[in-house]
């Protein structure tokens, strides 16, 4: 008898649950009794758990690729005629599979921590916490959302994954980045818990997890930008962010994680903000669990929600447990954690970091409030309401402006206390940058408050980055008597974190300008085009030359060829279309975009195309500078990668874990 894939997969899921549970229990027992054999056993079980979870992933992918419809998940979400890449990514196109992927990545990170993390008194506890989290995920996978159920009467074919997802290759990238981000930030969470348990609230736990934190933050940032680009290319309204609940719940942990990335530096340098840092990373983890609950329980209505089921309540219970245990532990250890150092002056690096922390927390709170408020109103009055984008814009835009303001001045301030002399001259230059850039924008006709202010603040930040670089390079050039470029290269090589942070800050400026203009000066119209006829739009002449139908095995595209001319000059031909996937009668409008540095031209078909159609209705959107958001996102990822790259020696030398451990003991 042939062994069925579903049986093997189920067995792997149950075994992974058992191994994670064993690892968590053995880890806790071993660490609390200081039993090295148990600790080692727990560590090895982390690697074993990863291998078992890998079996589950391989089984699922084989079932998807071989169209084995006896496996329930394949029967519900796959289709024979889908292209291979769609079958591969169908793994995370629906609820059960996404939990499998998440659990697998988590087991991979746990195994990696077990294999490469430096020996420290924190490590056994951190691994135990990660195995605990893993136990929950594999419990959900094995008992509540098992994708490996064996169907006695398998169907001949399935419906295929959600059409919106298979309509764009970004589906292969965005969710994986998101989970890598969430899972990556589990590592500092686990070490923070370990630090609380072992009463070692010093900087040790954050220094040990510095790279994990930064990598997790980088993945999450990239995931959010990639998700925006996916929305832009797929959803057909020409925007990239709608303050939809599912978007919001991915933003909240990013906001607190961003605060964390900044405030850890204050603790490393000044031994301050200990409880704050612990609370931030606990909050970040709790918010990622809360977000998973909200998107997988159907309590918030959203275009991207996963539907309802027993998984939602399980995540809610897990959220409550996480909050109670982690903050309970923080309260119990308060005497150890509480700060003794005090802020010397608000006008200092740590003052600016603290300020930006408050701002990011305010942003997270505002987003949380706007996302949950409809639930509160419905619970109290029974009215159904939505909180529209105007709320989020009104509340968050002023805070974002303050973030840009602090981002410019913060890195120029020294630790402890700034000297007034240098501060004044720096500020004068930066304000000059603000006035010149803002004035230039004004002169060029930018009369809206936020776009003009953003340009001004962009100028201010560019001057600040210039001052930072000059401050680092000029003395070195004088000393070394070498040309600027050589000095820059060696400086960038020796100070990867600092240079990486400059690149990231510059990327944020680029994104801010892109967002301000694409949101502030967007033109959005419905245009009727007769086949063979033309219409004018924002200086372009759009001509519908002919209808087309393009059937492939995976889908049928029907659309219109639109010739775009600027004056007399031919620019391009765009193909807005409607894709129909087999097994569905729902047409998926698929926009066509002309990408340009100054603005995008975005065409989306708003009417049906059939033989005999004499005219089409297009939604035509012009968004200035929107491309710079994606460019900025790529730059941000590069800057983060640069900060992460290079040799670990310097970090290792500064930390010297055994020495730090000895000092603590």
């Amino acid at each position, binding site marked *: 008898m042939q062994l069925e894939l579903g049986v093997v997969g189920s067995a792997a899921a149950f075994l992974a649950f058992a191994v994670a549970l064993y690892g968590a229990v053995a880890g806790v027992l071993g660490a609390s009794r200081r039993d090295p054999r148990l600790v080692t056993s727990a560590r090895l079980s982390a690697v074993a758990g990863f291998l078992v979870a890998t079996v589950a992933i391989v089984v699922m992918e084989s079932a998807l690729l071989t169209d084995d419809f006896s496996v329930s998940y394949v029967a519900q979400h796959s289709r024979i005629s889908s292209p291979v890449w769609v079958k591969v990514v169908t793994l995370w196109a629906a609820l059960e599979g996404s939990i499998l992927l998440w659990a697998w990545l988590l087991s991979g990170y746990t195994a990696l921590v077990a294999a490469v993390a430096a020996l420290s008194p924190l490590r056994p506890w951190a691994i135990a916490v990660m195995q605990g989290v893993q136990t929950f995920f594999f419990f959900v996978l094995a008992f509540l959302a098992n994708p490996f159920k064996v169907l006695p009467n398998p169907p001949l074919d399935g419906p295929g994954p959600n059409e919106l997802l298979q309509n764009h290759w970004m589906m292969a990238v965005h969710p994986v980045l998101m989970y890598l981000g969430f899972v990556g930030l589990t590592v500092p969470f686990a070490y923070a818990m370990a630090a609380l348990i072992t009463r070692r609230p010093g900087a040790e736990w954050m220094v040990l997890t510095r790279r994990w934190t930064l990598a997790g933050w980088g993945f999450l940032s990239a995931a959010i930008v990639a998700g925006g680009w996916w929305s832009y290319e797929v959803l057909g309204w020409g925007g990239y962010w709608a303050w939809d609940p599912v978007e919001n719940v991915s933003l909240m942990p990013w906001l607190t994680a961003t605060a964390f990335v900044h405030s850890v530096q204050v603790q490393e340098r000044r031994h301050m903000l200990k409880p704050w840092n612990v609370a931030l990373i606990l909050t970040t983890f709790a918010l990622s669990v809360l977000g998973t609950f909200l998107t997988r329980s159907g309590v918030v*209505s959203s275009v991207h929600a996963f539907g309802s089921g027993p998984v939602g309540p399980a995540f809610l219970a897990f959220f409550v447990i996480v909050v109670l245990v982690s903050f309970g532990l923080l309260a119990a250890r308060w005497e150890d954690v509480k700060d003794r150092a005090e802020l010397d002056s608000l006008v200092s690096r740590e003052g600016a970091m603290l300020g930006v922390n408050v701002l990011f927390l*305010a942003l997270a709170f*505002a987003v949380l*409030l*706007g996302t949950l*408020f409809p639930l509160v*109103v419905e619970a109290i009055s029974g*009215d*159904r*309401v*939505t*909180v*529209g*984008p*105007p*709320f989020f814009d*009104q*509340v968050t835009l*002023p805070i974002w402006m303050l973030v840009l303001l602090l981002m410019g001045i913060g890195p120029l301030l020294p630790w402890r206390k700034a000297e007034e002399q240098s501060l004044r001259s720096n500020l004068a230059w930066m304000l000059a940058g603000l006035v010149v850039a803002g004035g230039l924008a004004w002169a060029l006709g930018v009369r809206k408050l936020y776009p003009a202010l953003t340009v001004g603040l962009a100028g201010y930040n560019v001057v600040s980055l210039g001052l930072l670089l000059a401050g680092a390079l000029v003395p070195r050039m004088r000393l070394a008597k070498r040309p600027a470029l050589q000095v820059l290269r060696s400086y960038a090589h020796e100070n990867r974190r600092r240079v990486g942070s400059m690149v990231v800050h510059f990327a944020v400026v680029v994104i801010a300008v892109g967002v301000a203009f694409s949101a502030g000066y967007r033109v959005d119209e*419905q245009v*009727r085009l007769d086949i063979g006829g033309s219409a004018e739009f924002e200086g372009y002449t759009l001509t519908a030359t002919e209808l087309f139908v393009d059937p492939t095995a995976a889908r049928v595209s029907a659309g219109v060829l639109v010739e775009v001319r600027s004056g007399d000059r031919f620019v391009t031909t765009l193909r807005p279309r*409607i894709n129909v996937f087999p097994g569905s009668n*729902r*047409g998926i*409008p698929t926009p066509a975009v002309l990408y340009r540095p100054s603005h995008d031209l975005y065409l989306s078909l*708003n*009417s*049906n195309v059939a033989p005999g159609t004499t*005219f089409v*209705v297009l*939604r035509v959107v012009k968004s200035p500078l929107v491309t710079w958001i994606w460019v900025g996102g790529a730059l941000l990822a590069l800057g983060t990668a640069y900060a992460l790259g290079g040799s670990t020696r310097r970090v290792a030398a500064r930390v010297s874990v055994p020495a730090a451990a000895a000092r603590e003991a």
Partner: protein
Amino acid sequence: MRKKLLYGALGVVVLAAAGLMIARALQTSLVYFVLPSEYARDAASFDGRRIRLAGLVEPGSVSFDDAQLQLTFNVTDAIKTYPVTYKGAPPDLFQENGGVVIEGQFHEGVFVGDNLLVKHSNDYHPPDDGQVDVEALKESLR
């Protein structure tokens, strides 16, 4: 000590300002989701506000001016019916007796929508005798 007091006072002022700002923003940007009969019961309280009006497309009421791209139809919950105008082509799967949610504002008795969503759920079927279960309808359209 004085420093702490100053920071504390500063914090209170900032928090109060933020609270005020948030409350005002919430007040102005809440969008209620209502059926025509619910709107009729409480029309004054929605005066000048954006709402999401949900219901079924009344059979025989749909007309589309393809030159002006003006779509007009009536939205109903069998208790109350309102005329709707929307600038744009009828979306895919827009049909008589089908569920719709329109976001916009009333102007002199006509609902002017700027966003039109078709709800093609299978949960709700209008009964033959013309009686409508309002709660079930609302649930199916949310």
